């Protein structure tokens, strides 16, 4: 498969109201990449995420998105909110809402979209939950539903915000395996903010470490050899 650049961040400064949290940031995400963004709380991970999603303009420099992503086709998996936990909606309603984005000016879903949604649900093993109520699912199942919605929104890139937060270890491993499968077999690029450094090192291909006003970006091996990696990921067995 031809690898193309999905996101390119060129000498970007990111932050709020002219106060940069990230400076001179350079990295790129190619199709098939698995990028994990790690770092302590308050080090700017969510700022970076917002900038990647286009909700925050860089103070200087630029973030160039591929043509396919620019039209709102971003597969985003946000952190769950409390209100969602008891939301009355069926799984298919949630999954189908992934097809809504800015570029489509239609008011209903097409047959093609419906069958694509079924296909994605099958891929993630939630097809039999199709007519179940979202609030009656387990945390791991809910996360799969949201992942499925993200797949409907975009076929090439998934952006995940701490996807395993609140999941039990088995459900978390299941989710990691699913992501690994999507990444390897379907060639979907993955950008994930995570606190789970062990699994980031295990599944990721590239690590972006957020420090205070400093950053490091490189492959897992380069990261482990760097001062950040030695301090942060030292206990890898």
């Amino acid at each position, binding site marked *: 498969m031809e690898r193309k650049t999905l996101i390119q961040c060129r000498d970007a400064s990111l932050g709020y109201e002219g106060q940069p949290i990230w400076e001179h940031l350079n990295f790129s995400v190619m199709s098939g990449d698995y990028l994990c963004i790690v770092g302590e709380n308050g080090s700017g991970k969510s700022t970076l995420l917002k900038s990647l*999603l*286009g*909700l925050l303009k860089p103070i200087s420099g630029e973030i160039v998105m591929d043509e396919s992503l620019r*039209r*709102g*086709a*971003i597969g*985003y998996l*946000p952190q769950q*909110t409390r*209100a*969602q936990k008891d*939301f*009355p*909606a*069926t799984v298919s*309603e*949630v999954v*189908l*809402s992934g097809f*809504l*984005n*800015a*570029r489509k000016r239609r*008011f*209903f*879903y097409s047959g093609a979209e419906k069958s694509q949604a079924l296909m994605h649900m099958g891929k993630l093993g939630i097809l039999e939950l199709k007519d*179940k*109520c979202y609030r*009656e699912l387990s945390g791991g199942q809910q996360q799969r539903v*949201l992942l499925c*919605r*993200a797949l409907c*929104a975009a076929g090439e890139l998934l*952006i995940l915000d701490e996807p395993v937060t609140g999941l039990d270890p088995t459900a978390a491993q299941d989710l990691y395996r699913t992501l690994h499968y999507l990444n390897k077999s379907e060639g979907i690029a993955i950008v994930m903010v995570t606190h789970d450094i062990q699994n980031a090192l295990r599944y990721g291909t590239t690590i972006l470490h957020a420090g205070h006003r400093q950053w490091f970006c490189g492959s897992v091996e380069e990261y482990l050899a760097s001062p950040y990696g030695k301090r942060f990921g030292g206990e890898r067995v």
Partner: protein
Amino acid sequence: MTLLLQMFSYPFILRAFVVGILVSLCAALLGVSLVLKRYSMIGDGLSHVSFGALAIAMACGWAPLPVSIPVVIVAALCLLRMTERSRMGADAAIAVTSASALAIGVVVTSLTTGMTTDVDSYMFGSILAMERGDVVLSVALCAAVLVLFVLYYHKLFAITFDESFSRATGVKVEWYNTLLSILTALTIVLGMRMMGAMLISSLVIFPALTAMRLFKSFRSVVICAGTLSVVCFCIGLTASYLISTPVGATVVLVDLAAFLLACAVKPLLRGR
């Protein structure tokens, strides 16, 4: 039965039925979104703001609706902004706004006309308050809410379910939220003259809560809330005519009965 037929021979009851049915339909549809977004108390706050505006309008001898509609819309937009941005806490902001508006209204009326039956009818509603202009306005409002709901049903679902995802995919979340708050403000102003400032918010909250207990999909919750709201209103209005009780309170009691019934029925449904 003759009593019922006789009831419809009064034009003011007919007007109350038309306005009430349309307003309760709109309130229920908007209510589903508001309750799920955890904005239930906004209706309460807005009705008190509306009461304050009405009191000032009466004191100055202005027409009530042209004054209160813009004031309440501005209040709705401010409350929505506050819930989105500030760290002060949405519930505190709404509580402060509604108490202040109520206080302003009470002070202004006691300084000018004194606490008359007019004030009482604004607090607890009156069936006589419906005028021809109200009928026209509520038909227009109801049409707007229904069109919005049918055309933007899926977008509204997506925004209600997950604002950050919608924003990331480029949906103009702010625009829809603004629209939602303007429509809510209009519904409150129209409905409050019949239901009363103290009771109108129940029209927003009850049907949505009851429907959420009974149904599992968003579509059925919306349809059920709308139907339930209209049915409860009709029963409440008829009952209030038959046993001569205030309309607002009677409708709320019917809504409460429906809610309790739903709570009782739910375990049976689950057992199936």
